[in-house]
């Protein structure tokens, strides 16, 4: 199977090099692997760091946000015939050891979309973040009729069918919930696996903020009812 590891990065010079170097060399069921960094219009050395390593780098000339970067990654995956696509955050919050368990249900053809849930193993997650994620889980359920324990997780895997069917329209953080709209509307088989997160001051400063909930809600309502 051919795996694409998609890493959206915006001004991630501090962590990107370390994240790329710690990715596993071999994974069960995977014959070929390509690491794809989407440099989302970074103004720091993110692009230089990624280009110095043996990875594919796709450069956005303007910052379009997480959704914009993931959408570009999906387009690239569609054009390059990947069997599995994994999304992985560039801020160092994911544990590379979790990749194998997140892609396993796809490799075994048991699921189309797998989300690595940080809330199945809550250790280390600040309480205020748990509340924010729970609120967004409820919003995701109300709008898209899919219950998940972690709608905002950045560690997800997609099958070939999911790569082909999913069409990302969001530009920013709301994309994490938008995936559940796609799961529901394309009837994709969805699975969750527990993952552990590495919480540092840096990764917490980069992640989703509770104050964004209202902005995300308005964008999701627009996406659900008004977007073409």
């Amino acid at each position: 199977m051919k795996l694409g590891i998609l890493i959206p990065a915006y001004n991630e010079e501090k962590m990107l090099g370390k994240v790329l170097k710690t990715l596993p060399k071999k994974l069960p069921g995977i014959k070929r692997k390509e690491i794809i960094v989407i440099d989302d219009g970074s103004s720091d050395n993110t692009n230089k760091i990624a280009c110095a390593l043996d990875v594919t780098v796709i450069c956005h000339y303007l910052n379009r946000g997480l959704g914009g970067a993931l959408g570009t990654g999906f387009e690239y995956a569609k054009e390059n015939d990947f069997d599995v696509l994994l999304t992985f955050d560039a801020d160092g919050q994911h544990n590379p050891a979790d990749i194998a368990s997140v892609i396993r249900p796809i490799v075994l053809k048991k699921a189309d979309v797998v989300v690595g849930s940080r809330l199945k193993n809550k250790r280390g997650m600040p309480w205020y973040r748990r509340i924010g994620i729970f609120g967004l889980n409820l919003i995701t359920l109300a709008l898209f009729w899919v219950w998940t324990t972690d709608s905002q997780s950045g560690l997800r895997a997609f099958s070939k069918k999911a790569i082909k069917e999913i069409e990302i329209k969001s530009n920013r953080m709301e994309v994490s919930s938008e995936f559940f709209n796609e799961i529901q509307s394309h009837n994709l088989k969805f699975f969750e696996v527990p993952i552990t997160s590495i919480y540092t001051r840096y990764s917490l400063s980069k992640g989703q903020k509770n104050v964004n909930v209202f902005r995300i809600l308005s964008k999701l309502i627009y996406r659900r009812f008004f977007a073409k």
Partner: protein
Amino acid sequence: MIPIAPIKIIFTIFALFAWSRAVIKFRAKLMNAKEVAFWSFLWLSLIIAIFIPGKTTLLARLLGIERGFDAMIFIGIIGLFYAVYRLYVKSNEAERVMTEIVRKIALKHGIKKAKKKR
């Protein structure tokens, strides 16, 4: 001679200024004839409504509201809500188009491929 209330003068100046902006944009070909006709109709009818007493009361009665002034506020708020909604839709659409352009350029000219096949 009946004195003109200052608010009427201020509103008229503002309406004439807004109308002049529409005409300038039309002359600069940034607005089409239909759009300039719409804005001209809107601003001129608002000026007329302000200077002809009793007209808004008729409108208020039609809407089932007591006073003409209340009817104007009511219609104004609905109009503003609609304008905000239209702006929101337009800005989302513009964002979507911008992302598509950035994506197309990135996939055509902004790829540096990994060297080794893993």
